[in-house]
């Protein structure tokens, strides 16, 4: 926790260095920042950039007071016009603007929106129109990069990333006399003991892909084939069925609370973990500042996603940076996009809690925020949700069917067969 504050204080120290790196004649330097300043000679105009960074944290301040000034100093002719949009409304605003051809030059898009926007035809295909795309593609985490791939073309680059790891209440585990589970089998075996000690073994607030995919993947299951064209034989494979069956059995035995089936009046995962009602949950790095502020006395412990036959595999979250095909100033926009992926910009944002996507920064991350450690480790194997415009709809069907199975309305096999049939039809629309 102390590192977090130290990191914020250290921000002031790194800015001058960042500027020095930009303006220096670093022709031999291979960092993206250097190449952007080389290519940017003579650029001019305004670059509009829509994002949903938080104004309540340091994110917007870092973007507007550190990153953009540094870029504008290195590119004196270019002005960046950054528009902060409330996260919940950004998607609607993007779709409406797309219909009215009023999109900005650059968008920080949720990873799930990229295939959807690409399918609408409003995104610039970066892998063909960005000359040094391959250089960047090689520098970022592959799981995060994969969220930009639609029909063989990359329409964006990852900007920040995250994943879910296991968070546990050490007191609740100790009270039941069980060790921190490292495998799913251990978690399942400990569940009755934990129940006897007054804790649910695991809690989650829904059964959507974000919630259940870590269990399915860690069991060795899958959702679709690698090309995201068919779901049959994947979401209803033996391994996928076994993973969901495990969750259903745990729920029905009373080891998982009813918030997983949509009981929105139940105890939230964050509160339940603190009270010890929930022994373990899965959640992302943003929980650390929340816990630090809300429950300063609670010691938040993390471990890797419990492993199964498929390993310990979690789900990738985060945002991508995309350029619109209607952009009137692609050269300057490209220069700013490159700068956002420079080590300087990525490190500046890391201090606000945004996990960088450059694998070269991995070693520095724990020095900035020590809680990044387990997330970096988990990201090495984490996978993105299926990259398809149909995902929202498939996700809804998946959650409905799994919740039906948990309530006992339908068998797990039938539920997942139904998901497979419906998902196949949806995927066929986009193939």
């Amino acid at each position, binding site marked *: 926790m102390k590192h977090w504050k130290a990191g914020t204080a250290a921000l002031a120290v790194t800015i001058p260095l960042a500027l020095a790196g930009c303006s220096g004649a670093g022709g031999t330097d291979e960092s993206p920042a250097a190449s952007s300043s080389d290519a940017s000679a003579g650029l001019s105009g305004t670059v509009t950039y829509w994002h*949903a960074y938080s*104004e309540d*944290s340091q994110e917007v301040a870092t973007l507007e007071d550190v990153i953009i000034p540094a870029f504008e100093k290195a590119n004196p002719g270019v002005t960046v016009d950054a528009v902060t949009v409330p*996260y*919940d409304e950004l998607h*609607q605003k993007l779709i409406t603007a797309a219909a*009215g051809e*009023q999109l900005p030059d650059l968008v920080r898009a949720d990873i799930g929106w990229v295939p959807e926007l690409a399918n609408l035809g409003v995104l610039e295909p970066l892998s063909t129109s960005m000359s040094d795309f391959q250089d960047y593609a090689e520098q970022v985490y592959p799981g995060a990069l994969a969220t930009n791939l639609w029909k063989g073309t990359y329409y964006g680059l990852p900007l920040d990333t995250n994943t879910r790891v296991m968070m546990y209440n050490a007191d609740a585990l100790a009270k039941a006399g069980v060790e921190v589970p490292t495998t799913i089998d251990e978690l399942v075996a400990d569940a009755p003991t934990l129940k006897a000690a007054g804790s649910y073994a695991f809690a989650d607030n829904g059964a959507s892909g974000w919630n259940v995919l870590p269990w399915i993947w860690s069991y060795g299951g899958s959702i679709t084939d690698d090309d995201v064209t068919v779901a049959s034989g994947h979401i209803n494979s033996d391994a996928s069925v076994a993973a969901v069956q495990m969750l259903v059995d745990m729920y029905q035995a009373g080891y998982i609370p009813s918030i997983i089936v949509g009981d929105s009046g139940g105890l939230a995962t964050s509160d339940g973990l603190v009270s010890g009602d929930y022994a373990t949950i899965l959640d992302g790095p*943003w929980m650390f*500042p929340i816990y630090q502020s809300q429950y300063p006395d609670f010691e938040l412990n993390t471990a890797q996603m419990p492993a199964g036959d498929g390993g310990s595999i979690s789900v990738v979250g985060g945002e991508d940076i995309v350029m619109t095909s209607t952009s009137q100033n692609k050269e300057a926009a490209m220069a700013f996009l490159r700068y956002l992926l420079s080590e300087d910009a990525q490190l500046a944002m890391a201090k606000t809690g945004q996990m960088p996507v450059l694998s070269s920064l991995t070693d520095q991350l724990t020095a900035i925020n020590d809680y990044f450690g387990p997330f970096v480790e988990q990201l090495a194997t984490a996978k993105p949700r299926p990259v398809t415009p149909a995902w929202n709809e498939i996700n809804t069907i998946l959650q409905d069917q799994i919740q039906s199975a948990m309530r006992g309305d339908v068998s797990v096999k039938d539920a997942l067969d139904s998901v497979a049939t419906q998902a196949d039809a949806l995927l066929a629309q986009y193939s």
Partner: protein
Amino acid sequence: MRRTPRDRLLLALRYLFLGACAVVMVYPFAYMVSTSLKSRTYVLSDPTRLWPDEPTLDNYRQVLTAEHFPRYALNSAMVSVASTVAIVLLSSMMAYAFSRLRFPGRRILFALIVVGLTIPTMMLIIPQFLLARDLHLLNSLPGLVPFYVGTALAFNTFLLSGFFEQIPRELDEAMMIDGAGAWRRYWNLAMPLAKPALGTVVIFSFLGTWDEYAWAVTVLNDTDKRTLPIAIALFQGQHSTSWGLVFAASIIALVPVIAIYLTFQRYFVAGLTTGAVKS
């Protein structure tokens, strides 16, 4: 008036009942106030504990000193006042015509107003956006006004028609015989008599435009053009929200709404029409 013991008992019962209702009605607001007095609340706590442990006005201080906050309040105030004035004028004229003047097409136009009541405006957002683009009203504060007025007219025209219906026709006809034209009958007779109803329209219109969010966030981009609801929404983060801050901002934003309400509910004084009816 003289008070009998029975009157006193009835009055006491009335207060008791009203008090009980008030507790139920006010509770969520009290919870908002309580949360706004807590600093750094990222998780909303159990609402059965109303009084915060260490009450502080930090959130209020932070909101009021936030960059541009007064600017956003002024933006909202200008848009709401302009919209409310236009809504009151246009909807009362339409309502007067529909309930008092005979003209061809009256029934069809009124039916189209009723249709407008039932259309979910959310579904119109893309066509409205294209219209605003073609009229060069995107990213503009004055550009919000025609859209706020247009979407509020059906409701208020319908509401006012009901009240205008209630004004005795004899009064109109008497004025007509005196040679008063339609405008004079509307402005000098119907409007003063409909004061309570117009008060209602002002209260609802101001609240509606002051709170409007979905359209504003869709068409406005520039930081200095934000309205208050956008500024308040931006206090929320993608993964975490400082609820104390959000509620403090919301409560500050309620002050003008309550002020408008207090001002215009004064129009709800019984007996305004009395003299007129007798004349």
